[in-house]
């Protein structure tokens, strides 16, 4: 029953988001017809302009355009790209979604693998010289603009050292190239996440260690290391789970920029190109996909929460 309610809320959110973004886009001063055929053609070929205007539905009122779009979307049809006339939006997205999701996913894994041990280390070395140094590093990690790091990294490791290709490509027939193309993007994308997860875990661990049930465990004669593992660490992971969930979302949006730096063709670069070309169907389609992913992730996170924290009952959220 709860799941039903949550799913409905999720749909409502997506609806809200699409309405909002659709409306926003209609205010666009740019002209998709112009972007498609250029100034000269527009002057000399009024019939083409008329045809495209009808095709793009630019002559219809907003509400009608929106409802048409929604009906088509529900059927799975996201329309045709204005810009790439031979492709439907679905095709364009399908070509590129693997790259983006792969990027985000690999970064997520890297964040977990490095971030969690780092967080434990930060907690252990608090108030020591080494700990302060690590702290400083994590502060820097949070502050670095990831596209800048990407630029510098690409220069250092790509141009100067030649270890990685300048223009990467994901081609599952050529695994070596794919891997080499992915390493830098994944690493630069994860830096912020690693810093953030590590710091969150550190704070969490330090807080949990002072809790009453830890003293009770000590009074039972349980060894410190066991206490850390069985009690402190496990309990600290709960707030960190939220961070990791939200992180996935920010990794997805972060990849928009990273794809640009590394010239990878993913959803992000598609979005940017479409914006520059006023390609509404694609913009709407891509944003729709992002919204769905966001909503799914939050839904998954809620379910995960119920599973790992016995205090959370379905329908309640522990803030």
């Amino acid at each position, binding site marked *: 029953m709860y799941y039903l309610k949550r799913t409905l809320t999720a749909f409502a959110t997506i609806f809200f988001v699409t309405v909002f973004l659709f409306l926003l886009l209609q205010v666009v001063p740019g002209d998709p017809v112009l972007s498609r055929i250029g100034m000269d053609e527009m002057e000399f070929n009024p019939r083409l302009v008329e045809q495209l205007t009808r095709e793009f539905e630019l002559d219809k009122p907003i509400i009608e355009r929106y409802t048409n779009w929604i009906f088509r979307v529900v059927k799975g049809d996201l329309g045709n790209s204005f810009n790439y006339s031979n492709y439907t939006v679905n095709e364009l997205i399908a070509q590129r979604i693997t790259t983006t999701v792969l990027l985000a996913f690999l970064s997520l894994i890297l964040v977990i693998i490095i971030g969690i041990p780092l967080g434990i280390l930060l907690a252990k070395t608090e108030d020591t010289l080494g700990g302060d140094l690590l702290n400083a590093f994590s502060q820097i990690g949070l502050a670095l603009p990831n596209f800048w790091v990407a630029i510098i990294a690409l220069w250092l490791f790509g141009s100067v050292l030649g270890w990685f290709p300048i223009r990467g490509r994901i081609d599952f027939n050529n695994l070596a190239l794919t891997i080499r193309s992915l390493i830098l993007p994944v690493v630069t994308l994860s830096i912020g996440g690693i810093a953030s997860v590590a710091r969150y875990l550190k704070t969490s661990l330090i807080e949990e260690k002072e*809790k*009453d*049930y830890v*003293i*009770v*465990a*000590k*009074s*039972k*004669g*349980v*060894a*410190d290391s066991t206490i850390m593992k069985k*009690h402190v660490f*496990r*309990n600290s992971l*709960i707030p960190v789970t939220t961070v990791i969930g939200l992180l996935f979302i920010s990794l997805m949006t972060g990849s928009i920029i990273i794809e640009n730096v590394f010239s990878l063709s993913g959803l992000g670069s598609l979005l940017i190109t479409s914006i520059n070309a006023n390609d509404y169907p694609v913009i709407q389609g891509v944003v729709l996909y992002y919204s769905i992913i966001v909503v799914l992730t939050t839904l998954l996170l809620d379910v995960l929460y119920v599973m*790992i*924290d*016995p*205090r959370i009952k379905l329908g309640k959220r522990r803030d």
Partner: protein
Amino acid sequence: MLLKVKDLHVAIGKKEKVKILNSVSLELDKKQVIGIIGESGSGKSMTVKSILNLLPKHGEITQGEILYKGTDLVKLSDKEMRKLLGSEIGMIFQNSMTALNPLIKIKDQVAEVIKTHNKNLSEKEIFIRVDRLLKEVNLPNIEVVRDKYPHELSGGQKQRVLIAIAIANAPDMLIADEATTALDVTVQFQIVKLLKSMLDKYDMSMVFISHDLGLIRHVADYVYIMYAGEILEKGDVLQIFKNPKHPYTKGLIRSLPEFSKKGNKIEVIPGRAISVHEKEEGCPFYKRCNIRVDSCKKLIKEVEIEDNHYVKCIKAGDRDE
């Protein structure tokens, strides 16, 4: 003598050390219950935490001995101390709300203390013991309760679980730190009754800490009155109530509801308890005392009133009010 604390001094602090316990001495004999009474900040919790090596991060014992069955606990290593905790010495905490790990089932939390000290027992045997313990502390519906999580139990039920954990390995000594403070009055008495029957059954001694003098009266044989890290008066529980000597003790007794005359206001001790940072030389109770003299500011001395009844006050021998 089961436990003998001799001249214990404890200080705490990250950069500067502040003394929080000053020359605390107490004794616990077999089958005896001693009560430690005091307001918040009096040092009563710190005393037992020092005994158990559970002092907070920047606390340390600067002087004194803690003799348990003849062994000085201060000199023991962490590992050796851990062998005693949970097996020979059991502790019951206040704050039943937060004293149990919210993510672990009740049965596993009780099992933990058994497992730690009985590494060769099988899972099955451990849980048999767990069930037995849960039954002993009068928890209803054991088959259901054992699989529950702490937030699903009431305060009183959680306290019973904590008692079960403390007595699990049949310790010789129990330490109950404000074990009933967070509970309703009716539940308080039930818990105290349970504790007393456990003590009887397992031949245990207990150190019972509270700020509630009325409660201590029902529980303890011998009482220590603490204030600002010092023991101001100590004696047999009956003697303390019949013949209190320290102005603080008198104030505490007089502020009990049963002692106020009908229609009159309940008496209170003027002022508030000082914190350890405000302590100066001499008697810590100086500022609130109604029989103080100038020399109290410098000097403080322990005086024996009657058999085993001591008071730390230079004016204590004087006439009663």
